[in-house]
């Protein structure tokens, strides 16, 4: 394990039940339901969505084999809800692997038995961005747009005038692009052809 959290250190911190709590002579049977225990650090418990980091891109929904993660679309109210249900989850940790923001967090939680399935549901409600021209809701959340703004370099935004077109629906985007190209008729090549690597 890596330096910051050494695996052996983690194992030492793991609250082993028999040795400390019962004394030297551990009985064969675990005293588990009558004491509290922890699972080892690498135990694959149910994952957990961190709503501070989640952008609502749906990468986890694509990756989830048993559809424990589902995106609920509600375009009339301008929201989409990422719902996670531990009752469907097989703990394969694919969602943790594909999450681009690190919002899916692994846990070692194992005490999840319940008498009602309502307790196993986690929902994150995301607000959709809306088109500045026609007022319709887009497919993206405002957090997604903010995240893309942080990823792409500034030159690309300048070159394609992305700032103006980012919050538009597909139709409006096409119209604006055609208008822009007409303005630039004097230029020999359109801008996207010039962007090839090494071409000056």
């Amino acid at each position, binding site marked *: 394990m890596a330096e910051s959290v050494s695996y052996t250190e983690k194992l030492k911190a793991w609250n082993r039940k028999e040795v400390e709590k019962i004394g030297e002579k551990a009985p064969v049977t675990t005293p588990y339901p009558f004491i509290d225990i922890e699972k080892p650090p690498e135990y694959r418990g149910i994952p957990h969505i961190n709503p501070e980091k989640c952008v609502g891109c749906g990468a986890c929904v694509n990756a989830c084999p048993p559809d424990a993660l589902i995106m609920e679309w509600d375009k009339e109210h301008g929201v989409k809800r990422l719902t996670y249900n531990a*009752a469907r989850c097989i703990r394969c940790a694919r969602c943790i692997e594909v999450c681009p923001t690190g919002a899916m967090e692994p846990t070692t939680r*194992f005490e999840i038995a319940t008498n009602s399935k309502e307790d196993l549901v986690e929902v994150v409600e995301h607000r959709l961005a809306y088109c500045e021209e026609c007022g319709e809701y887009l497919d993206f959340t405002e957090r997604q747009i903010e995240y893309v703004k942080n990823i792409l370099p500034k030159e690309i935004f300048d070159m394609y005038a992305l700032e103006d077109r980012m919050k538009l629906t597909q139709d409006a985007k096409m119209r604006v692009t055609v208008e822009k190209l007409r303005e630039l008729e004097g230029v020999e090549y359109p801008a996207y052809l010039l962007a090839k690597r090494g071409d000056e």
Partner: protein
Amino acid sequence: MARLKSVWVYHVDAGSCNGCDIEVLDVISPYYDLERLGIKVVPNPRHADALLITGPLTRQTRIGIRKAYEAMPPKPRIVVAIGTCASSGGIFYNSYALYNTSPERGRDRLRSGGPEMVVPIDMYIPGCPPSPEEILYGIAQLLGIKEKKMHGEYWKALPPGEEGDGVSFTIPERPLSLRLWITLRDELRRVVGYYDRDAVLDDFMKLLEQAQKDENPRERLHDLVTGYFLKEKDSRVKVAMRFLEETYWSLVDEYGEWGESLRKIGKSART
């Protein structure tokens, strides 16, 4: 509700892959010893107070489950669903072989499916398969030894820069750009799994932060990574660290070239 009397259980398989059945066997073994709680597995539903169901309820087993449920004494008639399949249908939820009458074909928020289509269920123990402790916890909760710990969550994610009723958005601070971080994280997947990946990347960030203070970050980072290399005992982490260093500099070069050419084009387009 604590039950003072011993609960006798009847274990029935509703088309499971036998993973959960083996875990039920484990729970009866001397280490976990379910029988000290008064639980006894009996071979006949007429003697049983509780039904342990594993499996996603295939069409063929539907009638058998119903019959076993009706054969049990009318009180207390507890049903325990063991495993993800028995809780919601699991990975088989939309299979042709299953009996699933849920209106949205198991894609509603509660993910209905499994044996709850024919019998009411008192305790869900999800897991694929659930470890013996998980099964013990579920049964201890039925007997009133343990308390319920899970509860549902509903968060409202606020758009960036907004505060109020909900959770605000944060992007963690890092010593390199978000674009590089995402690419590095994705590349690192080739050499380490999900469990070690974030820890290794965090360590690399720390080294990078130290190296960036130096005049010659390339050599300094190489020294730091070599020091890490000598200290670390796990060879997989060593390989991942070297891989990260190489990938980082190749990415920096590549993106640098891109940036240069982009800036040139930007200038020529403006003039």
